[in-house]
């Protein structure tokens, strides 16, 4: 026969023990929302981000959850939406999350164009009662195009600073390879990130460090960011994201006889272009790629053709923390790269901000909690990144992340230069 005393006794002890050990876990979880491209040509970006986000949320919960203002601890919970790479869908998800869920903050979206549109529907200046934009904090992990976060004071990014990365890269190339003098390149012109970074950042950085355009000087390019960018595009050999044939472009690259080829595109066309260059036996002395291509997709798709390609990246498994995230991402069906790994950092930043800002996580304090998180993000000066400390650029909502230079070697990305100690 069941003895009630025997059942109750351990239960009472367990309850008492848990009350003594730590503040009890609150019943209500803290909800965060993520969204990105889980369909279309950039699907892998959303898959990778969600995989890392899932791992980060588990890590937080395994370590006891997040401390709320009243001293209780709450577990973290996430929801993830597919917003494709589409402005209307990104806006729609942002509105849904902000108005229909109790999410305290959002992480996303993937594409810069979608982010530029989505950020535009947020309140531009905090506290401006005449501005009816959304009042919901965002900490973006992927959309990397320069200067997006300043569109609204509610939007923040933890994405790398490409102008700084390529400046340091060309400084290093000039020093390490003094014999290399000429460059030539191309980009996928229909992608704002690839195109903008190539024509406004990369070519200018090369100019600053004395590299010459292989087919003759480009008018208007002075080395200043964005100088002569239309002429850069006109003098390059470009392609589109949906292209599958690169023979004309590869022929132009080979004909340029440049020492350095710049291929500024996402993994899919990067591989197409690299394979065509290899087929044509175009052999530059150095290949330089776009940050977004320092990913597992390139290694899976064209490791042999990419051999030797150098890319600056804000993520590489070079610290125990980064190694762990890379492993967890794989376990969750994704890959950690400079975009997706930021989702891990973002979750840890969110934990830190919630605990320091005194978030209550109650239905009646939802709007106040969101505001506290936004204000908390704004006051951050430094955050812990996976490969080092990340500096926050307060007035722009942006980050200055540490980075390394990786090179494709034998089917994997290997760190060939680590400028973190110099910064």
């Amino acid at each position, binding site marked *: 026969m069941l003895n009630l005393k025997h059942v109750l006794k351990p239960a009472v002890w367990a309850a008492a023990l848990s009350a003594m050990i730590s503040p009890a876990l609150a019943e209500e979880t803290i909800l965060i929302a993520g969204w990105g491209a*889980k*369909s279309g040509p950039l699907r892998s970006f959303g898959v990778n981000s969600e995989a890392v986000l899932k791992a980060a949320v588990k890590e937080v919960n395994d370590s006891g959850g997040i401390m709320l203002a009243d001293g209780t601890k709450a577990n973290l919970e996430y929801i993830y*939406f*597919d917003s494709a790479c589409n*402005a*209307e*869908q990104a*806006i*729609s*998800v942002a*509105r*849904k999350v*902000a*108005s*229909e869920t109790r999410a305290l903050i959002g992480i996303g979206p993937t594409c810069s*164009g979608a982010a*530029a*549109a989505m950020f*535009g*529907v947020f*309140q*531009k200046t905090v506290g401006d009662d*005449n*501005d*009816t*934009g*959304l009042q919901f904090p965002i900490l973006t992990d992927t959309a990397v*195009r320069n200067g997006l976060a300043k*569109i609204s004071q509610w939007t923040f990014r933890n994405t790398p600073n490409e102008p700084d990365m390529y400046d340091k890269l060309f400084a290093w190339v000039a020093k390490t390879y003094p014999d290399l003098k000429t460059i030539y390149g191309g980009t996928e*012109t*229909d992608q*704002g990130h690839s*195109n*903008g970074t190539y024509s406004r950042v990369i070519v200018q950085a090369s100019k600053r460090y004395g590299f010459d355009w292989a087919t003759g000087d480009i008018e208007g390019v002075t080395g200043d960011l964005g100088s002569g960018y*239309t002429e850069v595009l006109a003098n390059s050999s470009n392609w589109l994201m949906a292209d599958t044939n690169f023979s004309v472009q590869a022929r132009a690259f080979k004909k340029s006889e440049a020492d350095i080829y710049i291929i500024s595109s996402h993994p899919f066309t990067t591989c197409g272009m690299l394979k065509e260059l290899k087929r044509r036996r175009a052999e530059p002395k150095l290949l330089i790629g776009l940050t977004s291509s320092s990913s597992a997709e390139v290694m899976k798709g064209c490791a042999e053709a990419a051999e030797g390609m150098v890319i600056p990246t804000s993520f590489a498994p070079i610290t125990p923390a980064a190694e762990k995230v890379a492993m967890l991402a794989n376990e969750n069906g994704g890959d950690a790269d400079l975009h997706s790994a930021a989702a891990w950092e973002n979750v840890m930043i969110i934990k830190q901000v919630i605990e320091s800002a005194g978030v209550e996580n109650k239905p009646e304090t939802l709007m106040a909690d969101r505001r506290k998180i936004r204000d908390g993000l704004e006051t951050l000066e430094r955050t812990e990144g996976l490969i080092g400390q990340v500096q926050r650029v307060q007035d722009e909502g942006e980050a200055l992340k540490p980075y390394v230079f990786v090179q494709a070697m034998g089917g994997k990305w290997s760190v060939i230069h680590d400028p973190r100690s110099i910064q």
Partner: protein
Amino acid sequence: MAFYFGLLQTIGIHTLLGLSAYVLLLTGQLSLAQVGFFAIGAYVSGILTVIFEYHIVPGLFAGALAGGAFAFLVGFPALRVKGLMLVVATIAFSEIVRLFFFNLNWRVMVNGVEVGPDSTQGFREIRFYAANGWDTFDVVLFIWLFVIVVMAMLWWLDRVRAGATLRAVGADELAAQSSGVNIVAVKVTAMTVGGVIAGLAGGLYAHSATYVDHLTFSVLLATFAVAYPILGGLSSVFGTLIAVIFVQGILIEGMRFLGDWRNILFGLLIIVAMNFRPSGLLDGNVLSRIRRMIGHGKPDGGGRHA
């Protein structure tokens, strides 16, 4: 409610885009130029409200007029061709427009901030609504005011001689011409009206999304524009609205929770819908039944049912 109001905005804008193609489809013309007129309306109205700081109403009208003007100009050469050749010609026009905006760089300082179209980086911060204190419900009312006016006009058009002329040209061009209908005038007029509606929709889109770039105005959007009236049916102006609700409300938003399966089901459900309702979701039979239900239709067979 912001999400639902946002969805209503999207449905309203896409309904206008679909109606711009509907007018042309009535005359039997399949045009993919609507997205080009949509882009022109978006950029013109955006430039006027952001760079020249106009109120949105004149901005929208200017965008609509610009869309109509280009449609009028395109109408003459494009309508010399028919069927698939017209599709190709109108795709070419839309691509010319897209590439023009792809290269358009017009950055000026307004109130200490650099604004305007920035070629491949797009045209950001078209924030008239939020910056002027319009909440999402105000925007819904504003957009749907235009949708209702345009639908009412097209509904009325279907009940007067002009509408009959449009349908006559669409049904049998040769017979209509034999009856004295000026085919070129009808087609160019339809193209122009479609251009005005698409330009208006584009202006509303730019201000709703706050950002436009060349990728927005892709062939995919042009395909959606003609798919709405075809899927909804050409028997009534309401067919386009129903198709937009089906696509935007159910297939895109309603199935978002399905994750990766959403896109597979998206195509599948459209195929199923077109198979079960080849003349559109709101075809002539459904319309007759609806009319009978509300007591406005003439009884079939000329007699009262027992």
